[in-house]
């Protein structure tokens, strides 16, 4: 059962999806539903002995293209709607123990093509107003399946955080006639203290206003509204800077670094959004190797983040570890050109 319930105090939709209580939760490795189906083995989500990259509709979706009608009646203060949309799972690799940081760059380049294709394909569906690409990595952020994968939600409305961001961008555009994100990014590049890794098209940096100790943005340096605007060279550069950043994350505390990764980009609602600027946002929950940043009273109840660190110092820590530059990362990739071996 799923439906959209309106929250009149915050003016946003809440998705109820009670069937998700039954979803697979941290299964044994031998019963991973996202691995290829082995001959004679139990049938996984993917009916093939191997695959390159796979996208499929989530078995436990929050939003469905043909949703059931709401189970409750609306009131004037509490509208209810069917939870229409699409929830997809993106399998990055057939190898159970892969992570984005550890994959060959070629595979991440391929993934960027899949993201772009899904943005275009889902965005064409008339009821889809926003395509949200994201990844939850690590049990610290609630992951229930360890196999390397991300997700895509195609919403029938603009998610509230995105809407708020676009609203600020619209006001800036009306007042100053330019892109707020571009202006903010220009300040970051000029200052430089929070820049972590820079490529030809993309740059990774901790924003001045970082809310988490290692909150990081990854964005194109010129104004590009969405994945659809990225050329092949842009996608290659995105893949390289993304990998470089994730290698740095893992090197920071010498562990597989948990994070939430979310892609913000132009809505697909057919309206003009001159302030929409593609960017990836990373919310890592760790503030040290063994300490989590919790969203407690002030954050969850008040909406105000308290960051126990300075973005300038966190950026310096990230610059010190992992590849020193994009050139160093690419050189290491060239040195490790061995083809991927299947896992035993």
């Amino acid at each position, binding site marked *: 059962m799923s439906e959209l319930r309106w929250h009149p105090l915050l003016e946003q939709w809440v998705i109820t999806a009670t069937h998700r209580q039954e979803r697979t939760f941290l299964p044994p490795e031998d019963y991973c539903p996202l691995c290829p189906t082995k001959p004679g083995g139990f049938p996984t989500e993917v009916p093939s002995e191997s695959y390159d990259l796979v996208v499929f*509709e989530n078995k436990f979706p929050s939003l469905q293209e043909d949703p059931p009608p709401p189970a409750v009646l609306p009131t004037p203060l509490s509208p209810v709607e069917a939870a229409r949309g699409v929830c997809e799972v993106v399998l990055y690799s057939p190898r159970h123990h892969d992570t984005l940081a550890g994959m060959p760059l070629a595979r991440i380049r391929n993934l960027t093509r899949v993201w772009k294709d899904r943005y275009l394909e889902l965005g064409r569906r008339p009821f889809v107003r926003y395509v949200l690409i994201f990844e939850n990595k690590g049990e610290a952020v609630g992951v229930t399946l360890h196999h390397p994968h991300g997700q895509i939600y195609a919403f029938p409305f603009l998610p509230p955080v995105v809407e708020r961001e676009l609203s600020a961008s619209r006001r800036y555009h009306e007042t100053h006639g330019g892109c707020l994100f571009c202006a903010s990014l220009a300040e970051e590049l000029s200052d430089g203290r929070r820049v972590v890794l820079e490529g030809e098209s993309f740059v990774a940096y901790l924003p001045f206003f970082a809310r988490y100790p290692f909150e990081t943005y990854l964005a194109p340096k010129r104004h590009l509204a969405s994945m659809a605007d990225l050329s092949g060279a842009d996608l*290659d550069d995105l893949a390289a800077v993304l990998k470089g950043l994730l290698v740095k994350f893992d090197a920071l505390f010498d562990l597989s670094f948990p994070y939430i990764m979310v892609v913000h980009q132009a809505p697909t609602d057919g309206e003009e959004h001159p302030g929409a600027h593609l960017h990836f946002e990373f919310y890592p929950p760790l503030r040290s190797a063994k300490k989590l940043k919790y969203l407690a009273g002030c954050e969850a109840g008040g909406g105000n983040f308290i960051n126990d660190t300075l973005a300038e110092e966190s950026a310096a820590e990230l610059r010190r570890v992992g590849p020193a530059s994009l050139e160093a990362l690419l050189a290491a990739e060239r040195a490790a050109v061995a083809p991927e071996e299947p896992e035993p």
Partner: protein
Amino acid sequence: MAEHEGQGFSKRVVKLPDGRYLIYYEFGPSPAPAEAPAEKLKGPDRPEEA
């Protein structure tokens, strides 16, 4: 199997027994080449039977 010229991949859409779609994205053995600027595909993905 739909080839996506210039994008470096082909994709095959199948329908799972419970009606959901699943798409295999298949890339060549070498890294994906740089591609032409974005262009919208011509129609929705059409599933084949699994």
